[in-house]
């Protein structure tokens, strides 16, 4: 027990462990482990045949962290920023990584990007299909019920929220569309009512 100086640790005798566990202790020597010491200076090991890599061509102003002195010589070119989400992203990259606003703006841009992409997909004739894209078919082909029923799984308490998260962009888009249609309808009604008013009333 830790209440006295001599505390035999709560574990089985090491002899028994050594006998039963295959490979036990092969990397016991601390100094002989691959990541020890943490920093091991040897620039010749990596296969790099440059001091500083040649620069990749920058085809559009690549967004970068202000904590970098310059654009890194190599970078990913997937999904360049575009639309409103792109504008938010470009603004976010003016802020340092230490600021929460940097990351929160990027998260906001991600959500805007989803809505923009939904609209774009409709215009391109390939609308999103939340049922196939969320892989719900697996519920039937991969034992959805059996994997959950009678199992002591804590994630079952919040899994229904996933459905809400998938449906959220459609619910929001539906609400915005409904509200817009209603306000448009309201304006038309008002205009018609005004036209029907008898002359000279004002």
């Amino acid at each position, binding site marked *: 027990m830790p209440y006295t100086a001599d505390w035999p640790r709560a574990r089985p005798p090491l002899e028994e462990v050594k006998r039963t566990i295959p490979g036990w202790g092969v990397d016991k020597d601390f100094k002989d482990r691959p*990541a020890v010491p943490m920093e091991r200076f040897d620039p010749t090991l990596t296969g790099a045949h440059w001091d500083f890599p040649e620069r990749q061509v920058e085809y559009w102003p690549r967004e970068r962290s202000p904590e970098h002195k310059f654009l890194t010589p190599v970078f990913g070119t997937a*999904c360049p920023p575009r639309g409103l989400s792109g504008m938010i992203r470009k603004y976010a990259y003016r802020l340092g990584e230490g600021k929460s606003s940097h990351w929160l703006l990027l998260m906001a841009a991600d959500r805007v990007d989803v809505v923009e992409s939904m609209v774009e997909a409709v215009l391109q004739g390939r609308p999103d299909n939340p049922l196939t894209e969320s892989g719900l078919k697996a519920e039937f082909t991969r034992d*959805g019920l059996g994997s959950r029923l009678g*199992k002591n799984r804590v994630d079952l308490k919040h*899994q229904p929220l996933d459905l809400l998260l998938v449906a959220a962009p459609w619910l929001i888009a539906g609400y915005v569309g409904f509200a817009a249609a209603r306000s448009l309808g309201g304006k038309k009604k008002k205009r018609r009512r005004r036209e029907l008013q008898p002359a000279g009333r004002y």
Partner: protein
Amino acid sequence: MRAMVYRGPYRIRVEEKEMPRIEHPNDAIVRVTKAAICGSDLHIYHGMMPDTRVGQTFGHEFIGVVEEVGPSVQSLKRGDRVMVPFNIFCGSCFFCARQLYANCHNVNPNATAVGGIYGYSHTTGGYDGGQAEFVRVPFADVGPSLIPEWMDEEDALMLTDACPTGYFGAQLGEIQEGDVVVVFGAGPVGLFAAKSSWLMGAGRVIVIDHLDYRLEKAREFAHAETYNFAEYDDIVVHMKKITDYLGADVAIDAVGAEADGAFFQHVTAAKLKLQGGSPVALNWAIDSVRKGGTIAVVGAYGPLFSSIKFGDAMNKGLTIRANQTSVKRHWPRLFEHVKNGILKPSDIVTHRIPLEHIAEGYHMFSSKLDNCIKPIVVPN
């Protein structure tokens, strides 16, 4: 080419996409023969990682055949079978020269706090990943390795991330002979961390999770003693009881951003994205380990803040060690262990899915259906 693309949280689809091209003289284009879905892919699939853009292809665990090389590539040629570490790294910056390949400073313009990773949002550099027919591999002379003739392809695939990450987690724990080690999470990384803890001389290895089928795998694959935290009122108190009220010497967090076990923490992080990650496993690690103990963190978290119990960590005098794994640094030793039969990484693979069915694969893995531990994606 056919590729998986992200459409929004919890939604992906397979689309026809432009072939990747050589964009730098040391690039290679690799035809993917096998890819895997990583537990950390679920964080971006769920929309937790900032700057995850619609249209990106995920996948940082893959192997394949070299299709094309850039003019400065010396070590690879068309037709070579290669395994590609999940890190993208230049091999020449301050950090690479010190073998911290995961922290390379020349490949990720979007952030200095993390290196480059394939298909893992723009926060890690904006590269497309390997859950596709083809992928661009930067620094072909530095990252990929030829798959040894004797090595099984699924073993090679597991060596691109999950296996080295678990092994690295055990190393970060600075395990000494006879130590009591507790691993939080019985997913692929947790299983490899538990197995590797024995290799480093642990005297007792305990694995905690809430999925019985994964705990069963931990007993069988990693010879670990297991506890389902859902069966205990307070898993930390239970940990104290089973270690004679001392606590474990080393705790390994192999869960990361979507840790479960505290409803509020999980929902605010994983569902509402108000934290960089749910800190449940990390807080349990802090509270379960003994004073003066060590915590190794290899579970992935986002860059936003999380409500970590740092006061406890400080007052207990803990050492917290964490990093992404510099995969290639570990390959010589792990190749040796695989060749000698000490490790059989592909033992954890449970599902093989065609690329066209990847949406169902993600749903199965995310919802923990069909006893899924590690799904592999086969493009053709």
